[in-house]
């Protein structure tokens, strides 16, 4: 029972919890935009926590940096994706997204 | 004589028409001279080669060309007395017919195609004659079908294509049965090389039942071309073909191929003894008799000249089968010699019919009044052919019928005499009125369609000479029947070799 394990034992379930929140939000929230909120924010946070929890266990610092890179990419993709969907829905000049 | 020639000669004879034939397809449509030269060169070369072969076979020389197609399947061209008889007939008549056709088809389209297939057709006939086993025979037999189809359809008129189609129905159907029979027989007896006296005699008697069935299959296949009733339906229909084609179909190639095939199967595959023992000869004889009488009766009521000749062919060709069906050397001689004689006579008749049509537009018997005065030479040749057909001595037909009659008595088939007599009477009944009209009725004021004006000759030279030559042959074959190398002598040679084995 090392400190690292304890750390992970906290962050990993927490991360999962946020993922779950994202999923539930997707299901429970009433419209597209609010669902986008849930999707981007909760999942990004969940993934961030997961990655934090995993950092102590990677083989090399390079790999740790790779994990961080992944997280940054997910942030970028999440924000851009949400923006794209929202913009298309807002402008309504595309096909029916609803 | 070198052995290389022994193995090559049959093949060379086949190729002597095949190669020029293939080359003719490529000849420019307007190069008459080149085409004619190719034709004549081929025909003369073939004749020369056949001469060599006659001499060799007479002196018991073996000629055999063998190409392996697959294990157990050889393409064999070989020469025996019987094949030489047929080869000679077809080579001579090819030469004559070619000359005739050159004259007949002057200034018509598609002559390269015509002469190409014409040569193919003769090559196939020669192949049939020289076939050394049943496989080779079947192959050439089918090629003959293919090569004659374009000739029948040559004119391209609706009637021509219809006639060709009917021709095809019969021959392809027959070909399939022949193929089946041949394959079946080969599974029982191995490679079916033609051997005088047959090859099935030594096989166990348990197979005899199958042999009978196979014989019926083969007979059905061969009977189509030989125009045995009820398989004769195509023959009158294919009268639409140009006259040289009709001449070729009736006298040399197609019907003769069928008849020749029957002779081959009976003598050199089954063996005449076995065929007799299995009751197959009786079947053949009955069919032949029926055909003879039926053909004559139908001929009687035809007004179209070529139709009458066509039914006459149906009837006359079956004399060959009839001769074959009687067990005994004399009848064999009769049948075989008729193979030649009928060819010469019938080709004369068709040449003449073609002349009438081409020169004066006469297609019907009823239009022939007094034609003898306008076209005396042609009518003379026609008369020679017709009288020969009836069996008037000393023409060729008399010799055949005489030997058939003798053979029938010798073989104890007396009823055949009745058939012969009845047929002779019928022949007279449908030929003599034509002669009467031609010679003794006054000519009309206008011929139906006079296309060739009378100059020094009554028609084109290329049209006139061939019937005169064949008519002369017809007379000579009767007069000099006993001379060495005459058809009769040759037929006797074959019969001797068959029965004296």
């Amino acid at each position: 029972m090392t400190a690292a394990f304890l750390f992970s034992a906290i962050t990993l379930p927490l991360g999962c919890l946020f993922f779950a929140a994202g999923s539930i939000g997707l299901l429970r929230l009433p419209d597209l935009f609010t669902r986008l909120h849930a999707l981007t924010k909760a999942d990004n946070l969940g993934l961030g926590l997961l990655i934090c929890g995993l950092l102590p266990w990677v083989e090399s610092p390079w790999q740790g940096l790779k994990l961080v890179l992944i997280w940054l990419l997910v942030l970028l993709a999440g924000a851009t994706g949400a923006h794209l969907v929202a913009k298309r829905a807002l402008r309504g000049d595309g096909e029916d997204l609803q | 004589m070198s052995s290389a020639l022994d193995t090559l000669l049959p093949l060379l004879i086949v190729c002597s028409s095949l190669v020029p034939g293939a080359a003719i397809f490529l000849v420019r449509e307007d190069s008459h001279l080149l085409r004619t030269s190719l034709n004549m060169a081929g025909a003369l070369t073939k004749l020369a080669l056949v001469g060599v072969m006659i001499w060799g076979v007479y002196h018991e020389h073996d000629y055999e060309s063998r190409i392996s197609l697959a294990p157990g399947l050889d393409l064999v061209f070989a020469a025996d007395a019987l094949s030489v008889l047929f080869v000679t007939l077809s080579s001579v008549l090819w030469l004559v017919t070619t000359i005739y056709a050159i004259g007949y088809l002057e200034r018509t389209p598609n002559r390269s195609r015509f002469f190409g297939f014409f040569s193919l057709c003769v090559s196939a006939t020669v192949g049939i004659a020289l076939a050394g086993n049943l496989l080779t025979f079947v192959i050439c037999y089918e090629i003959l079908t293919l090569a004659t189809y374009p000739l029948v359809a040559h004119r391209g008129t609706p009637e021509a294509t219809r006639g060709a189609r009917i021709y095809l129905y019969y021959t392809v159907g027959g070909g399939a049965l022949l193929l089946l029979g041949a394959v079946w027989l080969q599974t029982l007896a191995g490679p079916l090389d033609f051997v005088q006296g047959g090859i099935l005699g030594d096989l166990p008697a348990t197979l005899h039942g199958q042999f009978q069935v196979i014989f019926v299959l083969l007979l059905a296949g061969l009977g189509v071309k030989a125009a045995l009733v009820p398989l004769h339906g195509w023959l009158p229909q294919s009268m639409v073909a140009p006259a040289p084609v009709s001449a070729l179909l009736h006298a040399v190639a197609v019907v003769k191929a069928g008849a020749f095939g029957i002779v081959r199967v009976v003598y050199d595959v089954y063996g005449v003894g076995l065929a007799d023992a299995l009751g197959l000869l009786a079947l053949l004889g009955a069919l032949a008799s029926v055909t003879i009488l039926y053909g004559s009766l139908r001929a009687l009521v035809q007004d179209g000249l070529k139709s009458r000749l066509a039914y006459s062919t149906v009837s006359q060709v079956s004399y060959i089968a009839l001769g074959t069906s009687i067990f005994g050397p004399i009848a064999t001689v009769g049948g075989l010699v008729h193979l030649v004689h009928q060819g010469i006579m019938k080709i004369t008749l068709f040449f003449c019919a073609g002349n009438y049509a081409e020169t004066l537009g006469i297609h019907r018997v009823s239009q022939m009044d007094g034609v003898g005065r306008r076209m005396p030479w042609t009518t003379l040749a026609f008369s020679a052919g017709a009288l020969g057909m009836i069996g008037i001595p000393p023409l060729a037909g008399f010799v055949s019928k005489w030997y058939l009659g003798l053979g029938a008595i010798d073989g104890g088939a007396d009823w055949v005499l009745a058939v012969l007599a009845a047929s002779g009477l019928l022949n007279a009944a449908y030929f003599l009125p034509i002669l009467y009209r031609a010679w003794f009725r006054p000519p009309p004021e206008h011929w139906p369609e006079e296309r060739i004006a009378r100059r020094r000759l009554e028609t084109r030279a290329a049209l006139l000479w061939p019937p005169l030559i064949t008519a002369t042959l017809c007379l000579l074959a009767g007069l000099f029947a006993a001379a060495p190398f005459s058809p009769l002598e040759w037929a006797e040679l074959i019969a001797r070799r068959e029965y004296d084995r």
Partner: protein
Amino acid sequence: MNGPARLLVALLAAALGGLLLWVLATALAARPEPALAEAAFAALPLTGVGNPVTAVLLDYRAYDTLLELAVLLAALLGIWSLGPPAPAYQRAGSALRAMVAWVVPLLILTGGYLLWAGGQVPGGAFQGGALLGAAGVVLRLAGDPRAGLPGESLQRLLAVLGVGAFLLVGLTVLAFGRDLLDYPTDWSKWLILAIEGAATLAIGATLAAAYVGGRPPGEGR
């Protein structure tokens, strides 16, 4: 297809599935030692690469891979022969452009990394090439009608690069009396890397061009 026919097909498919499951279970129960896997691992040192999958793809069964690249080429040539591409996408807004500006270089970098990594750990030419292709897709989505691909003749060169490198190496060793694609042991690692490099570029270009979906701009009417 109407209702009863659908049902029939479904029933047949279900029966087939059952049969296959049963067969699979039987086959697995009576399964012999997978000799091939052991052989593949045993021969690994001779190939100069550490990743067994890469060894299979580019050494033991390199011929399959050669043909596979030819399939890719055939698909591309087929697509080119069908006519001009679909219309391009509208120019991207600034947010997407910013993302693309980051993601595309990263895709290229990762593609190169996978190519490099394939020698030792999972990865390889195809994965790398697929990422390059994806970079093309992203570029086209962001408004570049050519998906970042070069001009026609260069595109053609890229398309044949994979098969070309394979054949070049294969036929060269053949000319020296060896089997086709039988690399000399000392060179094996580097030859494989060279082929993989060419293949990565080819696959990337081909996939991107396939996404463009029509003949390159220089060509044709």
